[in-house]
């Protein structure tokens, strides 16, 4: 497990941030969905709640834990954006964490809200995907790559 930068931790804990889970199916086809329940746990893992055992995301998560496939989590708000590469490590269908996520779902969406499982995901890599940060990183690596000539022309 890696230690996440504070800015990313803050985004993961922010209820107003956009949070996206990316997985792949058995054929390698990507599946990307919003998961507003994605949050940071005290031990540094990330967790989210699945509402359907039969969803494509859940099936891909099961495939992930069974065959050691990685998933991605993207979080963003305003101009800030991060991507986390992660490994599914646990599927909780009972217990304290499951109860907490279910209670939170009912708080947010009403008494009829339900949760089928809570996935715990261990981050193994992360990168700042904010536009300005990425552009600056690439510019530093090679200022003559990723640029059209008109931006380099002499001003007269």
């Amino acid at each position: 497990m890696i230690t996440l930068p504070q800015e990313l931790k803050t985004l993961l804990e922010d209820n107003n941030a956009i949070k996206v889970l990316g997985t792949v199916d058995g054929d390698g086809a990507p599946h990307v969905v919003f998961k507003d329940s994605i949050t940071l746990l005290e031990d540094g893992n990330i967790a989210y709640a699945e509402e359907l055992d039969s969803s494509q995301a859940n099936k891909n998560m099961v495939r992930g834990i069974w065959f050691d496939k990685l998933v991605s989590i993207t979080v963003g708000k305003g101009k800030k954006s991060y991507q986390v590469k992660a490994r599914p490590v646990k599927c909780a269908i009972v217990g304290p964490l499951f109860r907490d996520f279910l209670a939170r779902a009912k708080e947010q969406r009403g008494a009829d809200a339900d949760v089928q499982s809570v996935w715990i995901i261990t981050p193994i890599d992360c990168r700042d995907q904010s536009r300005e940060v990425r552009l600056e990183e690439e510019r530093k690596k090679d200022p003559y790559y990723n640029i059209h000539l008109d931006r380099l022309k002499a001003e007269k």
Partner: protein
Amino acid sequence: MIKINSTKEISFKDIALRYPDFPRFIILKLDLYRRGIVCTDNILERMRKNVPLPLVLRDGSSVLSVLGGVGVAGEYLLEPYKIDLLDGKVGIFDGEEFLDEADFSPDPQFYGKKTSRGTPMESIAQARPQRLDVWVYRFCHFWEGGNQCRFCAVNAMFKSGVESTGRVSLDPKDISETIKEALKEPGRFSQVTVTGGADPGEDQKFNSETQRYIEVLQVIGENFSGSRFPSQLLSCGLSKKQLKRIHSETGLLSYCPDIEVWDKERFAWICPGKEKFIGWDGYVRSMLDAVEIFGSGRVYTNIVAGCEMAEPHGFKTEDEALKSNLEGCEYLAKRGVSMMSLVWRPARASLFHRQKQPSLDYYVRLAKGLHDIRVAYGLEIHSDDYKHCGNHADSDLCRID
């Protein structure tokens, strides 16, 4: 007398290498059932129980503990896996080698409470991770005259409870109150399963067993708002008339008469009570009738996989046994019935005690075969999947279908 196999078993890790497209978790689960588990004193002290609740693997699937403990399970012929603490967490060990973390399913909130009659609620309904089991009748009459299934230890499992209470059947009011209390805990249960020992009754046609199940399902159903509720009945093979009554008079959703052994001749040998009172044809007919009543995909049956190879009359090779079971699965799948498998462990109180179990390789091939056939016939497993049951490696596989 079967000799104890002293040669080293092929480990689950070797089997996992042999089947890279088969989930390691499920191979481990199969072998935990096959070889058995023992909990160290550290674990028992932490659980404060003699019989721990189901073990839950990291992928959310469960391994049910042997009810009744080692006294019923018998000694281990293969080296059992060890469940111990490692850095404060529950771990699965093969000898001294740590294999993986796991958890025990937590007690539901109704445990420790009593019904208005003073009955401990945990004696009425038992919790799996997401399932509530109600054993409404705790005696199997097939044992009278020695007609019990040869792999079965059910009467020994319930002996002490029945002796201490003096009752073999549960009171419907106790059941109703326990279910009501269980439903107060949000998200804790996804299904109620009702079962009990075989009771042919005076007419030997299972009418008393049918009536008992109807009464119990009705009092359970009073706790639900809709006409049906997620539920399964595991019973003897009932007649079409009996099944129609159950379907129309209760909210039951799915039905599972366990045939135990698919091969007809070995069924008669291994399950003499079932053969005497219902017969192999009666069981199959009951399943097919049930599909007409409950619908395709709502009818299940279990085989106690491996006991069809017991000596002296069982199949001599794993290939023969596999062929028979997969033929059975396909025959039933074509007709809307899902055949599931359980791992056979020869319990001390059973007639097959000390018989040799098949290899882990056999169980992997069987699980894959059963799953693939059901997929080919479009059968989805809902009432008997990893969450609503937890006992079947073959239905765990449907999680990624």
